[in-house]
């Protein structure tokens, strides 16, 4: 039973990482807390819902195509938003930037409701992933293993890009010291737009990938954003590896909580978050002395 819950927690954690990765990437580079991350996730889910029937009659490849296309469209929305709105307010106080992203939340939510209506919709599971894998006398959904694999792939790709490409070098440089990058004559605006698009792509990808595993409706945005923030805060804002560790930890804590303290499972996660914040802020104070 313990192993079942741990495996399960890791699976859920990877799903959370997929959501949180884009959020932490955007924050790392542009210091923007993007409240609209959940909206882009939701958009990815709805676009997948719309596109799946066009490409897939239960085939895995068609599903993958629909998800990727949905994610690309979400990235386009993100890039457009960055160029049209966010770019103009990077010098504004942080609160202002936060409010602008909340405006995007409201706009996307109303548009989604207008296009797809207020009711729940369901994306069908691709046939190949519909079954369960038996380990011992427990069953695990094939789908969760696929998500875990997709999560690992995203981590590997992100590390590869960040470590070994010029774009990655610029990204790291911009995360470390924005001013220095500008002094070197690199157009910061392009870095910011690209990062925001990449983060939006990851959000859309997560939304599309998760869509067959549950319900899709216009309220997904806020459900998702809270979980993503918890993960990112535990992992350290802007820290990719931290987000991965934080996501897996949250998944496992939740599933063990359900096993041992069924009535407190949700509270546990917030307690861990509070503890992490407390320890970190104390550490900072130590440093300042």
């Amino acid at each position, binding site marked *: 039973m313990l192993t079942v819950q741990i495996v399960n927690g890791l699976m*859920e954690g990877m799903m959370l990482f997929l959501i949180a990765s884009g959020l932490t990437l955007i924050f790392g580079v542009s210091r923007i807390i993007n409240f609209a991350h959940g909206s882009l996730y939701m958009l990815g889910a709805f676009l997948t819902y719309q596109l799946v029937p066009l490409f897939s009659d239960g085939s895995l490849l068609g599903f993958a195509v629909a998800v990727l296309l949905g994610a690309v469209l979400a990235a386009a929305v993100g890039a457009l938003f960055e160029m049209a709105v966010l770019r103009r307010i990077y010098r504004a106080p942080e609160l202002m930037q936060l409010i602008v992203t909340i405006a995007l939340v409201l706009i996307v939510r109303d548009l989604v409701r207008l296009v797809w209506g207020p009711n729940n919709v*369901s994306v069908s599971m691709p046939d190949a992933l519909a079954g*369960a894998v038996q380990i011992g006398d427990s*069953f695990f959904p094939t789908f969760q293993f696929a998500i875990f694999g997709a999560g690992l792939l995203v981590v590997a790709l992100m590390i590869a890009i960040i470590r070994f490409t010029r774009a990655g070098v610029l990204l790291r440089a911009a995360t470390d010291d924005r001013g220095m990058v500008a002094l070197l004559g690199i157009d910061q605006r392009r870095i910011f737009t690209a990062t925001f698009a990449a983060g939006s792509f990851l959000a859309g990808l997560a939304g599309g990938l998760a869509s067959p*595993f*549950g319900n899709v409706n216009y309220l997904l945005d806020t459900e998702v954003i809270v979980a993503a923030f918890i993960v990112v805060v535990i992992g350290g804002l802007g820290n990719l590896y931290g987000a991965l560790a934080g996501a897996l930890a949250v998944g496992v804590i939740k599933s063990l909580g359900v096993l041992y303290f069924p009535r407190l499972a949700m509270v546990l996660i917030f307690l861990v978050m509070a503890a992490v914040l407390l320890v970190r802020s104390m550490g900072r104070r130590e440093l300042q002395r």
Partner: protein
Amino acid sequence: MVDKRFELSRTLARAALAAVGLAMVAAVAAGPARAADPIRIGLVAGISGACGPLVDGEVKAVELGVDQLNAKGGLLGRPIELIKRDSKTKPDEGAKLARELVLNDKVDVLTGTCSSAVMLAVSAVSKELKTPFYSTIGNSQKANIEAFQPYFWQTQAHALMEAAAAAEFVAGHADWKRVVPMGFDYEWGHTSVDTFVAHLKQLRPDMEIADPLFPKIGESNMTSYITAALAQKPDVVYAAVFGGGLINLIKQGKSFGFFQRASLVTLMTVDTMQALAKDMPAKGVSGYARAPFFELMGNPKAKAFVEAYRERYGVYPDDWATSSYDGLMYLAAAIEAAGGTDADKLMAAVTSITVHGLRGDALKVRDFDHLMNAPVYVGDVTTDSPYGFPIMKNVVRIDADKTMPSKEQVEKLRAAAQ
């Protein structure tokens, strides 16, 4: 000359003033009796927020019903005016809007609330401003028991009744020996689980009842709850969940092979079956429902409603729509019986009339807790359906006399709450 002219204009002015005054007095006197003065219904509902998907059907059905009544000349010769407000599924917002509707828009009746929390907040306003208020979705029993107030009535089976009906259904399966209860982690979920467990213990003392699980409302990832429930090797899982969270439970449960190993008994409304469509498991899901249209088609009134709804909106009505329409027609009958919208006369009519509605030919509201004798429908979900989405088969209508708490029980609960 100047004085005279002044005198003349003053006289004229006085005369004019008097005429205007007289006209005003006449208008005021005629006001309440004038035939065209509309009956105003204030609908406060979570048009946005967590209740959005449920309220959609409610609003559609109420708009249809109001238009139908107006097409027949309104009620008592007065047209009906529907004023909608979005509570955003927030109790304080709902209470504020209800107050504005009564004080500024002069509504005669309030309705609409979906979340129990908003319902209780609006009920408090209804009590304070002595404005009749009925609920067709939100169904916390608190409004009928501890927080009861004389201007409220409930046109649904409340949470205790639904949980009792679910217990009856589970107890009726002799081959089910172990049950895991589950509920959303808020007032409604806990009350439902507690009532279900208490009722089941009486009906089936032999049944093993595991510790309940409480996922948060709308939980997007139910997997740890699914594995925890399956680890108990249950024959059946009772789940007081609904909407998106329920869809997550079913879809994720399906990939765990849940429905090959256990059955699920849960609140199963038409909108959930429409949303799941072909993703619904072919067996293993049973449900209790409030107003499943496909079970009501034998009733000509219900059939006419379903057809009118389809013609106007192009879809079949979900339970929220059907029961909200039923609630509106009950109100219409009460207004006609009361001969107007005077709050006290209307409430007297509400508890004395019997209405032939969509859910039966003898709907009425009890006087000591203002609860309608609404039935609960239980059955097994099947994908074999003529409607293009799953429905329920082997449906049993559990009448309210089996599930409604007795007067003594209600009084005991009220005394305990004080």
